[in-house]
């Protein structure tokens, strides 16, 4: 097997592979920065919770109009936003920690979703929603994920500064009137939108893996937010490409294959990472003797 067979042929010979690659690449670009901010906000499990929370909305969409992308996506977005905003509002109104109130709402939402699916559908439908199917990416699905990635990139660029300040120093942000509820809400809205947009190709749960693992891995390679965002997006893109090839050549499910590749990148970064990786900690370089030697 030559390099052409290994890397190019699957995409040249099969349209579904090209579609899958474009969908995954678009999602990687949209979700890469979001994962970084979730990690920085200490909300790494938020994506997972939202991924579960969209289920009842998707199920209702499915019950009303069958396997319609738009109905299921709209339902998913509504359910995800309701859970995210309700938990945010509850924690602000009662002082309950946000992760705690989110856990409460998403568990209820997930149970409701499973209940709805079991009333009308079968376990196979449920698996499709949660884990996706790369063969299923149609024109609408492709357009949707690309449009969301575009919107996401534009919005994140616009709210980048208040978003960073809010993560970094919330008291300072409040004292100068930076950020606030609107930044938080827009950000959570983007998380919901991206996870739902990825559900045809990856499924909402596997999409969470592509959002979070590259972000966690990137943390080991830089000490600058903007660099971390770029590194994270690159790892997500590379994981998508390699994961799709692995799934093609070894006949594995594509979503989990992509996430497993991202997981390997994460484990590699833990060990090899240039900033706080294990090797960098063990192989300490000689210390500086003069403060002026310190240059990053």
């Amino acid at each position, binding site marked *: 097997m030559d390099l052409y067979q290994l890397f190019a042929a699957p995409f040249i010979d099969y349209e579904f592979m090209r579609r899958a690659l474009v969908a995954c690449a678009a999602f990687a670009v949209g979700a890469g920065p979001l994962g970084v901010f979730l990690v*920085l906000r*200490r909300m790494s499990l938020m994506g997972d919770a939202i991924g579960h929370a969209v289920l009842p909305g998707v199920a209702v969409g499915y019950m009303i109009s069958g396997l319609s992308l738009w109905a299921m996506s709209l339902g998913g977005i509504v359910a995800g936003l309701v859970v995210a905003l309700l938990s945010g509002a509850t924690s602000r109104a009662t002082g309950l920690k946000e992760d705690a109130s989110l856990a409460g709402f998403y568990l209820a939402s997930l149970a409701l979703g499973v209940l709805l699916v079991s009333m009308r559908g079968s376990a196979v439908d449920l698996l499709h929603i949660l884990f996706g199917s790369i063969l299923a990416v149609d024109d609408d699905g492709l357009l949707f994920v690309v449009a969301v990635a575009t919107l996401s990139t534009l919005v994140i660029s*616009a*709210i980048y*500064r*208040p978003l*960073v*300040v809010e*993560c*970094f*120093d*919330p*008291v*300072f942000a*409040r*004292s*100068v*009137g*930076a*950020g606030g509820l609107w930044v938080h809400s827009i950000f959570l809205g983007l998380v919901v939108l991206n996870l739902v947009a990825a559900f045809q190709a990856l499924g909402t749960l596997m999409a969470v893996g592509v959002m979070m693992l590259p972000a966690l891995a990137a*943390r080991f390679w*830089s*000490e*600058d*937010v903007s*660099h*971390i965002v770029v590194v994270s997006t690159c790892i997500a893109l590379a994981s998508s490409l390699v994961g799709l090839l692995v799934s093609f050549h070894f006949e594995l499910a594509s979503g989990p294959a992509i996430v497993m590749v991202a997981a390997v990148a994460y484990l590699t970064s833990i060990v090899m990472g240039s900033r706080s990786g294990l090797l960098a900690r063990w192989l300490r370089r000689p210390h500086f003797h003069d*403060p*002026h030697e*310190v*240059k*990053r």
Partner: protein
Amino acid sequence: MNEPVLTLRNVIVTYRRVPAVHHVSGSFQTGALTALAGPNGAGKSTLLKALMGLVPVSEGEIDRRGISPQRYAYLPQQPEIDRSFPISVLQTVLLGAWPRSGSFGSIGPDEQERAHACIAKVGLTGYASAPIAHLSAGQWQRALFARLIMQDAKVILLDEPFAAVDDATTSDLMALVKTWHAEGRTVIAVLHEHTVIERFFPETLLLARDVIAWGPTSEVLTPGNLQRASAMTKRWAIEAHRHAHPAPV
């Protein structure tokens, strides 16, 4: 010069209905350098937060002379900042340009230059591009002071600015506070060390939920006033305890 920049009228701030600041009235004059002193639990930090508009005032009012508190500069006590956050000293200091840049405005070369000048003023030359995770506690406090200078505020509120730093840093930072005073800025600082207050702060507000005394430091920090302050705080602690655990009838 002698015009109040901040006037409090019968200000009460409560947490869960227990007052933390009680019937505070008085004025901070423009350009005054005031120490906010008092025992633990006297409501000093709460009063600063109320002046910043970060906690709501239950009764009374704070007259800021039409200046939004978002134009004040505020240094909280040991800020809840994740020191492993991936951001450099320069970027941290540049945040002080917020009153001018806002969320979307550009930050040009002039602001960059100012930020470098602020970093130099606090003695962190050479550390501009260092990640904040690499700074010691004293250097970190210097970086936060650089951000305060960058904010260029007329009113500066400091909560225990020297609590976690060594003597050398304290005297360098105190020199900056004196510069602000000389520039006519109004500075209010929560402080514990009476020696520092007596040496550097012309005015003192001694707080024990109520105002015990407010005026020239030598007239405020008298043994009698200090004793009254500590007695007052103890009484409040007992009252709060009774409030939380009512005696059986």
